[in-house]
């Protein structure tokens, strides 16, 4: 997603396999039926990214961190707006609709701005990890180094909220190939790093532990929509509704998921907050919507559908399989 290119030399001498190997092909046709609690059709979850970008981050071997020579006041301040102003506005609107957030959290926010975390906890939101800072990437890290980041996140979230670290979105979506293996080994339930499907899916990792991919939908993520694609607020609202309508219709056959990834620095602007208000109004007016968190969706899928889905996928590759 980054607009910034890889630094020359970063991948020199490294061999990359032709595919990541996290899953086998599974067509969106003839799949085992997913049923959500109380027969709901669509599990809706909101994932606000509560982030901290450092003004003076360490250099990365992989990419430039900022767009302008540091201090990049424009881009730092744009994101800082989310923590100072946008967060409370966004939280007010979500609370008014009874929608909880599942926070994609740069866990350093727990140290910098404990009041934000307190409010998330008061509202019953889930905290999952988006790394330490959004200016510290997983790129180029050894397995031990990646484990260190995962464990820091787990410890920090537990300390401030009493919550288990169950979900993961790599900071600035910076992965190494083994990241998913390590997350599974560290006991996490779900990852948002994979964009291959609209339904929860088992992820193949080397430990064979249950590990689920949840859809984190870039289609309706405010950063690509508003920043990279320059879509108007009106069109963004329509996009959210169209996206929902299709998934809701498909949910009659088998349970679907809709994720709304947000950034308070964008959606929390005075000229955009109404989009969220109207989007939640629309979505919540449908009786077949399960208002869930990432953890709840992953846990339900693990408990009720994971094994069957895995068996079905395995059967696809066999002679005479369905």
């Amino acid at each position: 997603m980054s607009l910034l290119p890889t630094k020359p030399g970063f991948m020199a001498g490294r061999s990359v396999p032709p595919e990541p190997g996290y899953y086998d092909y599974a067509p969106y046709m003839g799949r085992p039926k997913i049923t959500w609690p109380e027969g709901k059709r669509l599990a809706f979850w909101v994932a606000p990214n509560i982030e901290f970008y450092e003004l003076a981050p360490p250099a990365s071997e992989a990419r430039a961190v900022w767009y302008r020579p540091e201090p990049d006041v424009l881009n730092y301040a744009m994101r800082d707006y989310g923590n100072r102003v946008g967060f409370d506005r966004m939280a007010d609107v979500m609370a008014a609709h009874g929608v909880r957030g599942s926070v994609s959290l740069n866990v350093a926010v727990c140290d910098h701005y404990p009041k934000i975390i307190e409010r998330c906890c008061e509202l019953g939101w889930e905290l999952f990890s988006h790394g330490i800072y959004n200016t510290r990437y997983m790129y180029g890290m050894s397995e031990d180094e990646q484990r260190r980041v995962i464990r820091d996140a787990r410890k920090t979230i537990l300390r401030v909220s009493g919550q288990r670290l169950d979900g993961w979105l790599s900071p600035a979506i910076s992965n190494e190939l083994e990241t998913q293996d390590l997350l599974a080994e560290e006991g996490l339930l779900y990852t948002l790093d994979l964009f291959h499907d609209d339904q929860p899916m088992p992820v193949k990792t080397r430990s064979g532990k249950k590990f689920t991919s949840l859809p984190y939908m870039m289609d309706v993520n405010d950063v690509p929509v508003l920043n990279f694609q320059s879509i108007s607020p009106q069109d963004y609202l329509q996009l959210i509704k169209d996206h929902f309508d299709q998934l809701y219709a498909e949910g009659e056959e088998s349970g679907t998921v809709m994720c709304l990834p947000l950034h308070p620095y964008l959606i929390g602007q005075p000229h955009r907050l109404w989009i969220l208000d109207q989007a939640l109004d629309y979505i919540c007016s449908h009786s077949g919507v399960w208002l869930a968190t990432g953890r709840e969706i992953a846990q339900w899928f693990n408990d009720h559908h994971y094994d069957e889905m895995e068996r079905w996928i395995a059967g696809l590759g066999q002679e005479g399989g369905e």
Partner: protein
Amino acid sequence: MSVPESYFDYPNRREGVDHDRFAFRSLRDAPPVQWSHGGKLALWVTLHLEHFPLNMPGKPLLPIGGFDRPGVSVWDYTERDYGNRVGIFRLMRLLDRHGITPTVAMNAAVAERCPPLMEAMLERGWEIAASGVDMGHLHHGEIPPEEEARLVAESFATLRRISGQAVTGWHSPAHSQSPRTADLVAAEGGQWIADWINDDMPYRFRTDAGSLVQMPLSYDLSDRKVMQLQAQPAAIWSGQVEAARDLLLSETATYGGRILSLSLSPWVAGRPAKIATLDRLFSSLLSDSEVKPATGGALAADWAAQVPA
């Protein structure tokens, strides 16, 4: 494969921001103020008068609106110059009609190059704020300190000499600062800056030469971002401004006086097809008796008088 051990040092991982320029303050904790003009929502119009030299370096950063065409960019140069010749006079008529006194964040070069424009603005009592020398001389992390000190001094001195005003405001061209810009502005007698886009309300900004008031000049809602960079039609832009007005007005009940900042560049907003939309927008904004225009300097002083340091 590994990263340096120092990649796991987090020197600023503690309560508060990760620098010493200002304190963290959330929307809910901002001290409420009442504007002395009596309106709940202050309409702060800022006009950017800028000179983009034909030979602007474009490095190490390209300002928004900077030239990115190959070769000698005559089209870009003249299109921006249009703003200072034509567009600004359309906006002037419009602002006169609606009784709005704007802040003009200007490159010193424009004051020197366009005396009749300067005269017309000063006659109207428009507030002049310093915005560097020209768009080929940006303030950024790689600028030599002596060169930057000279640019800041020259910008203030030229604008004060030509305008006869105190000139206490500063907007860094392209919202770009070096680590020293604010210190230099304060040392030159500046009282407020409008560069950091992280708030909707003023806050105090520490410098080596006393504190400044950082004013919430909008960028995300500027004509340049929405209509130039994102190529949205004027109606989409004005609809966003009205949405911001509605939200900010609703917040005045809880949070006190608020500011609606309109950031306009005459080479973008002063084009013929935009004027009718702007006219309707100003009418719409000012039809509410709770919305009243004010300049950046007036708002900064008003805010500072009510919020103890």
